[in-house]
């Protein structure tokens, strides 16, 4: 068991190292120069621009050789320092990210969890019901296939513009400051609802289909037939099948939660929701090396962490995995 985990940890570290290196390399592969990009917004004389370019290149640490930049990058990571954003100069990347993350959490965690719970329930319910399988399930396939932004656009258009029930941009009213007042909460929830709902619906379709397919397999497993042969009631058979079908769904959930920090780009764009997804896009558009790196680093850590947690949780919930660890 110990050997198993130490090997796992080693592999994770290696993967992390690789991913971070690629993360560092990627923005540097881009043609163009972030400082140049930043200063192109400035209204300045050209000779002044030269001087400023020199100054800011140095300020961003882009004047040293690449290998040194790489080493500095690692050093900085361990100090929790991800540098200064170019696009949101002179804000620290970590601050920028920490400010955006709560919005992602508020939007994605409920939408992922609730859609997961509801989708699984519905999928299990629909499985093996010929009627549901032929009527409602095709709709869930359609949901699963719906591009996030399209549903978001449709909802923004119908509920936001045509009927005017919900606001369609921002995280709370522009006439407010964040506070713990009731009015603010209401405003926040009203702005939160449409992006949440559009995410929920599409994800619901995905989970429901996953569950349905999985449970159908499980119901055809030998252990299900055995139970049936011994006269076990349908409820017990389905309970077992549901529990076992749940395992891959847990994997899916963990992976999805691992990506929560990546935000929901398309949805955030449609609803102007200030999460990481939108931030990342801006960083990309502005060639903001440090912000791109920072965002990716968070995403990489999130995904790796999720994978690792799955590995650990699986050992606990699925006895089958323990076999491989001890034997052979």
């Amino acid at each position, binding site marked *: 068991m110990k050997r198993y985990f130490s090997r796992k940890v080693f592999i994770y570290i290696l*993967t992390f190292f690789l991913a971070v290196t690629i993360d560092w390399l*990627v923005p540097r*592969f881009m*043609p163009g120069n972030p400082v140049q990009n930043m200063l192109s917004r400035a209204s300045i004389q050209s000779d002044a621009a030269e001087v400023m370019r020199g100054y800011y290149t140095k300020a961003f640490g882009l004047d040293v050789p690449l290998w040194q930049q790489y080493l500095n990058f690692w050093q900085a990571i361990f100090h929790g320092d991800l540098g200064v954003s170019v696009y949101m100069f002179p804000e620290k990347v970590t601050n920028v990210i920490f400010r955006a993350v709560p919005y992602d959490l508020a939007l994605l965690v409920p939408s992922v969890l609730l859609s997961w719970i509801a989708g699984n329930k519905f999928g299990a319910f629909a499985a093996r019901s010929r009627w549901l399988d032929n009527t409602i399930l095709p709709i869930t396939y359609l949901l699963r296939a719906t591009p996030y932004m399209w549903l978001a656009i449709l909802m923004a258009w119908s509920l936001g513009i045509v009927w005017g029930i919900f606001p369609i941009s921002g995280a709370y009213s522009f006439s407010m400051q964040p506070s713990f007042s009731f009015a603010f909460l209401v405003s926040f929830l009203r702005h939160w609802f449409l992006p949440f709902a559009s995410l929920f619906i599409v994800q619901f379709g995905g989970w429901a289909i996953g569950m349905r397919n999985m449970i159908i397999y499980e119901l055809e497993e030998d252990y299900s037939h055995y139970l049936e042969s011994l006269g076990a009631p349908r409820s017990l058979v389905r309970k077992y099948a549901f529990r076992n079908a749940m395992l891959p769904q847990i994997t899916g959930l963990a992976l999805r939660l691992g990506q929560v920090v990546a935000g929901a780009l398309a949805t955030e764009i449609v609803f102007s929701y200030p999460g990481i997804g939108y931030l990342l896009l801006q960083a990309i558009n502005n060639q903001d090396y440090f912000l791109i790196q920072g965002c990716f680093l968070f995403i990489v850590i999130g995904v790796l962490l999720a994978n690792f947690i799955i590995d650990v949780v699986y050992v606990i919930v699925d006895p089958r995995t323990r076999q491989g660890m001890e034997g052979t």
Partner: protein
Amino acid sequence: MEPPQSKEKNEFFYFALRNNKLVIGLIVVFFFLVFAIIGPFLTEHDLNERAGPRNQPPSAEYWFGTTTFGQDVFTQFVYGLRAAFIVGLVGGGLATIVGMMVGFFAGYHGGMVDELLNMLTNTVITIPKLAVLLVIAAYLTVRGVIHESIVIGLWSWPWAARAVRSQTFSLKSRNFIDMARMTGMSSMKIIWTEIAPNMMSYLFMTFVLQFGGAVLAAATLDFIGLGPTEGISLGLMMQHSFNWSAIQLGIWWWFVPPGAALALLVGAMYLMNVGLDEVFNPKLRER
């Protein structure tokens, strides 16, 4: 005892044609395919040409209306459909092929090869697709649908690889593989002659899923502005309509058709996948 299973091809078609899910899925996909192929011949307009007045709702003359620039939405739609099929075929195909190769080797060889390939798979999963597209975007002055498809394909294979790997694992332990090995066949040959045929159905289903996944991924990339810089796609149509305030101005005919087509096409793909599953897997069939 199972009902006797003859390996005849017509048996596949026999069951396939009686599976509602598969048939409906096929019909929808086929409908769009035909639309994509002949659609461009039904319009006399060019993609970006100003075909008529701005913001016209659908009419006899402009079937799907016109955009803010007076472009014919129908024309963009049919070309966009073509792009969707190209992305699906190239992107989905590539992902399936790469995933198949990696999965086969990892599953078949096991041990170190498996560990290494696994790490590669994990790394690729971890690195956001956006990052790669970013670099590609920066390097290629011009990105076409094909470039986009290739990037998507090269970055979507890990899921296929994981699935294929576990399938290979289970197939590997079966007798006929042992026998083949005892006769001294090379592993390449074993994979191709013994394992692959047994997995054809599985691979085909993987491809169907990857097709849908690639189309959706492309739509998202297009929408956030990392899509092709040339031509049109359904995702780009949505991006344009969004950027040009079609929501606020109520130009619904600009953004409804591309999204609806995507949802229907990909939904039909998923439906097909389940249908195929039932056809290939007799256990799931009779219900």
